């Protein structure tokens, strides 16, 4: 029997090796099964190219972009949307003839929603795969870890949807195509105060997430400045599923709304438990809510709540409707804001690659920095001197299985 374990291991190793081989000749480099398998054990991290020779960066007839995002873990739908948006943009660019006569390819790594994995994935993209540009991630905590590596290596990075201000402060190679947390917190404070006429709001934040803490910070400051009152700030940690203690404490203060700047994976459950404890007030939140899973997890409990977001798929603009229908055709399902932003980020990158004189990091960086009035799906993109996009936000109301557009708040 003692021989069984080595045999089992060997069998496993063969299975893993089998997966690797299957995906390699395809060389579209968009395989994710390999990355997912990587999560199960260190043994699967075989170098993607044989003999460890890095692919020649310029000599080939393709331009390789790198993506690191959360395909597994608590916020997996974010990563999947991001990957889909990027792939759609690249497909369209390649159909239109590519860039400088070369096809664009992308290599996608899973960071499991963890900053340490994100940093590792970027190191691998830069040193092993020699990508010329990096796209990702959604969660600010992961993007921060990635930005550090990208900046140090001088590889330009565009985050589609990390809204924490510190991400682009990592250095001059880091850009984003979305607005930043101070603005999002401001949007909800203004909407709550002016449109909903709220005067007392409680806050429930995720104290493991830079994003959530950032939003809480700005929201509480702005809301108080506008004459409102914050009854208290409670915290939970990502991965919790029981929020009754916090909600019972919140209930005592009798707020008119609860600001929950967390992710959909927790918010849906929070809404259910709030209703269960007899808290009937609406919840307010940010773009972390944006996922089809929110409606499943929150059920009827989450209906009637509001969140700020980057775009609304209901916008009648033909350009947006074309994107929505293309996305539906390719992946089935309405693209969320993360897909739209990923699509925008990839297009900004493609635009910069076209304008850059060569594909050195410096040249691409300079070209991205020039981006002005670029027509994105989630609003026109102009990058300011801090490499952040300045653009309006929308407020959506959660309904039955979808969200309805309520209003637009300008910077």
């Amino acid at each position, binding site marked *: 029997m003692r021989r069984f374990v080595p045999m089992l291991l060997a069998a496993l190793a063969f299975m893993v090796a089998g997966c690797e081989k299957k995906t390699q000749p395809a060389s579209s480099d968009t395989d994710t099964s390999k990355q997912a398998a990587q999560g199960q054990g260190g043994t699967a991290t075989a170098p993607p190219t044989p003999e460890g020779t890095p692919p020649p960066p310029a000599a080939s007839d393709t331009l390789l972009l790198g993506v690191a995002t959360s395909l597994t873990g608590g916020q997996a739908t974010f990563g999947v949307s991001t990957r889909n948006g990027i792939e759609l943009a690249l497909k369209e660019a390649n159909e239109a003839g590519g860039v400088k006569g070369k096809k664009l390819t992308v290599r996608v790594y899973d960071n499991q929603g963890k900053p340490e994995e994100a940093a590792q994935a970027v190191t691998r993209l830069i040193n092993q795969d020699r990508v010329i540009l990096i796209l990702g991630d959604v969660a600010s905590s992961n993007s921060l870890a990635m930005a550090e590596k990208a900046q140090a290596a001088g590889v330009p990075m565009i985050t589609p949807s990390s809204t924490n201000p510190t991400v682009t402060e990592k250095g001059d190679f880091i850009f984003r195509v979305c607005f930043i947390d101070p603005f999002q917190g401001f949007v909800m404070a203004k909407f709550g105060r002016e449109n909903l006429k709220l005067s007392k709001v409680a806050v429930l934040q995720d104290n493991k997430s830079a994003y959530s803490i950032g939003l809480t910070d700005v929201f509480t400051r702005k809301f108080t400045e506008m004459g409102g009152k914050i009854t208290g700030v409670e915290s939970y940690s990502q991965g919790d599923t029981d929020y*009754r203690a916090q909600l019972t404490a919140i209930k005592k203060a009798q707020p008119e709304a609860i600001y929950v700047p967390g992710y959909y994976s927790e918010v849906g459950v929070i809404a259910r438990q709030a209703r269960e404890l007899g808290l009937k007030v609406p919840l307010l939140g940010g773009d972390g809510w944006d996922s089809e899973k929110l409606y499943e997890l929150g059920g009827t409990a989450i209906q009637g709540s509001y969140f700020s977001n980057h775009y609304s798929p209901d916008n009648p603009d033909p350009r947006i409707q074309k994107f929505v229908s293309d996305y539906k055709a390719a992946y089935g399902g309405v693209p969320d804001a993360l897909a739209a932003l990923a699509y925008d980020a990839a297009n900004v990158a493609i635009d910069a690659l076209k304008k850059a004189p060569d594909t050195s990091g410096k040249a691409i960086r300079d070209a991205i920095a020039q981006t002005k009035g670029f027509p994105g799906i989630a609003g026109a993109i102009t990058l300011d001197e801090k490499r952040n996009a300045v653009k309006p936000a929308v407020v959506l109301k959660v309904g039955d299985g979808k969200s309805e557009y309520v209003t637009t708040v300008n910077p």
Partner: protein
Amino acid sequence: MAQLLQHLINGLASGTIYALVALGYTMVYGVLKLINFAHGDVMMVGVYMGYATAFTLGRQEQKTFLGVVLIFLVAMGGCALLGFLIERFAYRPLREKPRLTSLITAIGISFTLSYGFQLDIGFLPGAAPRAFPEIIVPTEWLIIGDRDVVVWNWQVMSLLIAVGLMVGLQYLVFKTRFGRAMRAVSYDHRVAALMGIPTDRVIALTFMIGSALAAGAGLLYAIKDTSVSPLMGLYVGLKAFVAAVIGGIGHVPGAVVGALLLGLVEEFVVGYAASTWRDAVAFGILILVLLVKPGGLFGRVAAEKV
């Protein structure tokens, strides 16, 4: 006052579930001196089995009493089988090896399950959390004042089920032949084998019972918190492990006391102090207990019981 009562109810509700999971840790430790880190993930697998069964019975239909029993039976039976397989193929071959080897293997199994279940192939559910179907339709069992305190039917039910399972376990360990065999194996499994006790069978059965308990706990947990995700086992498992250590690992009533203590402490820290401190206080208590009584509240350092 009403708030205090509500906190007490919330704390007991999470405490009983930690207790059921902690029992599995403590039983396996008692028999094998192995901390089975995969225990929380076995629980997660059990919840997905229950989820699948609930959907097979019909997505929207109200579950009958028989349906609920069936869901519990499938999940607990399935997990007993899983526990058996894990013990048979991962732990038994390593039994005579240094204990560290088994411990690392346990961590490996834990990761294999929690990350394997995030794949989106075949029967595997994928990474995104899902809403657990309301197999027990939530109704208010008791309302005090203007919904100041609400007690739900499932809270009462899970408390009853948990207490029932604990009493049953205590009976099994101390009043039956099998329990005596378990205690003998725990005392010294080589000597027990010499006395004619089928140690392999006893250990396998212990694993199966522990895993079935985990599945039951997992279902109660999913009913309580309405969501299920592949990573849920890691968090609950860690909490339950802490509870088992506080109570004295290897000690059945100790695990229950430790778990209830942990559930209540977490609840009251969040309710009356700062919610940010919850985990700090919980682990602070663990350290304090271990400083004063290294064997846990009920455990003895030298003599080990089941």
